[in-house]
């Protein structure tokens, strides 16, 4: 904060100088990151039935605009009294994000990123057994065979990103996800849509926690 005030005062003082003496803050190096989204492993801690991970890249298009690409998988397997379920799937997320940080400190690579992404998941799911309990007449037991489904969604994300070590970034984002199209033809709704979250909900709040390493290509 003090640093920001100091920089602001410095800029204010600087604005009274002749134009030829004003120095532009050094532009940030351009490049791309390679990283991992830890949402999958964290989900595994909260819900042992889920297994997944994803990898991402973030690329500077300009000083403030980033391209984001992410790919990963998520599998679900559980046995409940009501039904057994298994799903295997992969997902892809592509989009743009803008750095909303109003004042950039010299030498700092920190951001507040707000972005819009498109997500796509392809998964195969099956309920190997399900039971409906009557309590008076005979119970009903059957299975739902494997079916493949596609889900398309849009995602609004916002969150901070900080350079914790040289070229090494830590960030989290909140994601508001909205299903655009789902091609499910089965009675069975997906328990989890890979990369999206709970399959019952058409609008969902998600979370990402990423570690990234920055590879500069232009200073």
């Amino acid at each position, binding site marked *: 904060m003090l640093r920001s005030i100091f920089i602001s005062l410095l800029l204010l003082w600087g604005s009274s100088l002749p134009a030829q003496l004003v120095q532009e803050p050094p532009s940030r190096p351009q490049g791309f990151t390679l990283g991992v989204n830890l949402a999958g492993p964290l989900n595994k801690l909260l819900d042992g039935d889920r297994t997944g991970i994803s990898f991402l890249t973030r690329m500077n298009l300009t000083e403030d605009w980033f391209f984001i690409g992410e790919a990963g998988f998520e599998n679900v397997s559980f046995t409940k009294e009501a039904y057994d379920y298994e799903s295997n799937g992969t997902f892809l997320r592509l989009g743009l994000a803008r750095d909303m940080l109003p004042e950039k400190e010299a030498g700092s690579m920190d951001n507040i990123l707000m972005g819009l992404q498109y997500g796509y998941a392809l998964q195969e799911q099956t309920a190997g057994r399900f039971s409906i309990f009557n309590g008076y*007449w005979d119970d009903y037991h059957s299975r739902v065979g494997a079916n493949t489904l596609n889900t398309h969604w849009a995602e609004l994300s916002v969150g901070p990103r900080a350079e914790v070590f040289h070229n090494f970034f830590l960030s989290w984002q909140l994601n508001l996800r909205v299903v655009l199209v789902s091609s499910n033809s089965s009675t069975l709704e997906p328990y989890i849509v890979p990369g999206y979250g709970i399959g019952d909900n058409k609008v969902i709040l998600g979370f990402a926690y990423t570690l990234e390493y920055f590879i500069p290509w232009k200073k």
Partner: protein
Amino acid sequence: MGVLLFGSFLWASCSQNEICLSNQHALQSGFYSALALEDKDTLLTEARIYGILPERDPLYDNETVGKLFLPLSFQKDTTAFVLYSGEFMKDTLWIRHSSELKYISRDCGFTFNFELDSVWFTRVFIDSVAIENPGVNYGENFENVKIYIY
């Protein structure tokens, strides 16, 4: 850095479990007086009611009842019940229905929703039967059938 750590605490707020409802495949019916000009609810005294084909344990045994919950069969398209009032007054009710498999939710799994087609009955103390709401659906709480008795 503090903001980043704060984010990790938000993580735990996303999971919630749903409460699954039971007895959602039971037809709901009420007894009405066959002698009244307008619908007037009444009671069936010393009622003993049980399913047949095959015969099951009584759902109601020597009770006074105004409303009934009659579970429908998953395996058959007709569910039948015997209704006794006292020791000797006996009627039989056959309910014809279709069923549709439905997925409720990730926590509750599957259920059957029913559509009542028609009801047949004997006429000892039952005067008539009217299907008021033909759908017997998960999460709904309607009276499906009115039974008019003397």
